[in-house]
């Protein structure tokens, strides 16, 4: 017995009132290295033991601030310095959008790190080698008893005096607790061959698995990557379709925008009834018509549609467009001629879009009116 090193003297109590009394008496008697073990926190115990309030709140505040500052700082760095991107037309540093992430990181760091700090700094856990573990005393306070123990390292500690003190308080099962000898003599050897062997095995397995996952597994089905996956590429064959053609033909009857098929072939006289100019002679339309006329029509018809070609006889001159025939035509008839061509004139449908042809007709009407002005036009 004498070789064993004493840790503390323990005593058990049955009720919360008794343990509060015992704790306050122990603290009044001047003991400092003592502890109370109860299956649940007993109200008023901190006062009875004269403990200072827990300072864990300061840890929480520090970690919370760390979370907030690092979140805001990181997002600021990313959006202002590292890779500024305009997103949704908002400023680079649009702080309202940073609120959720900053809040979450504040909460995350404050709560998780406070708990870790408490466990590691205050409790010095994990520690399963404490002398109180596996004693009868621990089993009792774990269940329904209330225990107190005064440690041998307390300056006022005296085995007999403490035992008598507990007896006077009404404590039961007053027993000494000793350090576990195995634990005391236990030493960890860094160069234990067993330990090094296990480390080596873990290292090989970890690196092998990492290599396999990142260099082999990730390139096996079903994992596929955008670089290599089956997809359509312009002008390239594709396996995705049974005919092996990547560029698909349009569906039968598809009409490209602005390219409605022209149903009237060679029916110059009758089309006027069916085709009506869809545009109004606004300033913009006349401007367009003028530009298109000067580009496409004026080389042969002349700048004022008088048939005075600029081609100097290299091409037969067309008749003037100020003839009664043309002036009395419906817009549709002119449109038909531009679209289908007439005599030597080819079709201009490929060069001039539909609406531009109608705009040219408006411009032509303006030219006709200007060249054949009536008295009433001057009013």
């Amino acid at each position, binding site marked *: 017995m004498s070789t064993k090193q004493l840790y503390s003297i323990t005593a058990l109590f049955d009720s919360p*009132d008794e343990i509060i009394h015992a704790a306050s008496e122990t603290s009044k008697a001047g003991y400092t290295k003592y502890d109370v*073990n109860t*299956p649940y*926190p007993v109200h008023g115990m901190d006062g009875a033991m004269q403990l200072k309030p*827990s300072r*864990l709140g300061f840890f929480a505040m520090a970690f919370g601030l760390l979370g907030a500052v690092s979140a805001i700082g990181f997002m600021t760095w990313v959006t202002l310095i590292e890779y500024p991107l305009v997103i949704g037309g908002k400023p680079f540093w649009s702080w309202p959008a940073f609120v*959720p992430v900053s809040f979450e990181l504040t909460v*995350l760091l404050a709560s998780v790190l406070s708990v870790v700090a408490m466990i590691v700094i205050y*409790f010095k856990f994990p520690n399963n080698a404490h002398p109180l573990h596996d004693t009868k005393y621990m089993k009792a306070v*774990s269940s329904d008893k209330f225990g107190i123990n005064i440690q041998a390292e307390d300056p006022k500690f005296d085995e007999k005096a403490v035992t008598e003190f507990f007896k006077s308080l009404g404590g039961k099962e007053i027993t000494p607790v000793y350090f576990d000898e195995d634990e005391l003599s236990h030493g960890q050897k860094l160069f234990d061959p067993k330990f090094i062997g296990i480390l080596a095995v873990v290292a090989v397995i970890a690196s092998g698995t990492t290599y396999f996952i990142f260099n082999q597994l990730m390139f096996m089905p079903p994992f596929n990557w955008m670089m290599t996956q089956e997809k359509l590429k312009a002008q390239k064959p594709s396996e995705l379709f049974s005919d092996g053609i990547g560029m698909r033909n349009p569906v039968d009857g598809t009409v490209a925008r602005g390219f409605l098929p022209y149903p009237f072939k060679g029916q110059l006289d009758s089309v006027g009834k069916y085709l009506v100019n869809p545009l109004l002679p606004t300033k913009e339309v006349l401007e367009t018509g003028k530009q298109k006329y000067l580009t496409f029509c004026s080389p042969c018809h002349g700048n004022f549609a008088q048939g005075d070609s600029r081609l100097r006889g290299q091409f037969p001159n067309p008749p003037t467009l100020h003839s009664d025939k043309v002036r009395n035509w419906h817009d549709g008839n002119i449109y038909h001629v531009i679209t289908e061509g007439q005599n030597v004139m080819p079709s201009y449908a490929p060069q001039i879009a539909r609406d531009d042809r109608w705009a040219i007709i408006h411009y032509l009407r303006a030219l006709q009116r200007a060249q054949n002005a009536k008295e009433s036009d001057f009013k």
Partner: protein
Amino acid sequence: MSTTVIDYTKELPVVEGRPTASQIEVVVTAPLDQFPPRKWWYAFAVTLSMLSIGGFCIGMSLYKGLGLWGVNQPVGWGFDIVNFVFWVGIGHAGTLISAILFLLRQRWRTGIARFAEAMTIFAVMCAGLFPLMHTGRQWLPMYLTPYPNQHGLWVNFTSPLLWDVFAVSTYFTVSLVFWYLGLIPDLATLRDRTTSKIKKTIYSIFSLGWRHSNRHWQHYERAYLILAGFATPLVLSVHTIVSFDFAVSVIPGWHTTIFPPYFVAGAVFSGFAMVQNVLIFVRQYFNLKHIITLDHLEKMNKVMVLTGSMVGYAYAMEFFIAWYSGSQFETFVFLNRALGPYSWAYWTMVSCNVIFPQLFWIKKIRRSIPAMFLIGITVNIGMWFERFVIVVTSLSRDFLPSSWGHYTPTLYDAGLFLGSFGLFFTLILIFVRVLPVVSISEVKAVVEGAQPSHH
């Protein structure tokens, strides 16, 4: 007729029948020390089958891709997002019970907090599954996080979808820490009770060497308070941010400021319904009727009638704002919800969430186990349909009638949904067999006579 006077000044006992500390221990730890009975195995077989159906659907979705699902233009968010919001909502009851009720000094929470927290963790796990599957390349989840990469690109910090990643992962981590913190003293008690050497080793590792020391309890209680203080705004923020996924967009029916409070109320509503439903079985099969009392269930039903009415108010207010805004798209979306092709889902939602829970105003129904069980189930059905209505109706018919479409889920969608239930209940069945479903140390502390008399 005699009038019974109820003394409201005196709090009802939280635990009935004044059990001693060791009696509480025996009854709570009983399921941990016995080989599971046949009934448990039957239940486990059912949930495991559901889980394997879900596993099959996940495998097929991984192998073949998301074309197996019903999502397509214009409804790109289907069952996956509906289930995500549904499960995250279920998870809210746990933190509400463990954190908010703790701050409000509601001592009745002790009996149900542990179980509700476990449900939170399992529900968030189920929830996390769906967005992960929804990303399409499920083996690249690190793209969701801001990590330095060879593209030199970072995630978009202005996107609510990224806020969601942070919110849900923080919520999961903090819930797990909260739950584990509560488990430490109980694990130490289990360590000191058990006679099996293997179990003792496991309990010793996870109890970290807890000695029930008051010098530790002091910090422990402070840590619990701090965690509760942080978890309270956290739980409110999580569903707020989930609702931002919708509210920050410009889709009619989503772009509303009522979404955050409305989503949080709905989450608490569905979470309490789920906790109540499962607890009815737990207290029955583990003889915990004196610890999880009828008073507990009644109080939960009261929370449900409150949050259910808040949800009902939100439904009405959405219609009012749709009319008041004068926006023709907004007005159309709500008329379409009530009268369009998904009106059956809308009216299922309204009847399950607004009408049936009002029965809880009647005390008899509030205290009748079969009635509250049925209403709890309808609430969960209703809350699932709420998310369905929000996600699908708004997407299927938005601005341009030429871009309208109809969403039809496939069997794989259904299988994944079934699988998430399988995962949830499998985890619960394992949990009730390996860990104490009631916080032993907390319940010991609230039994009558557990605290010093002068206090």
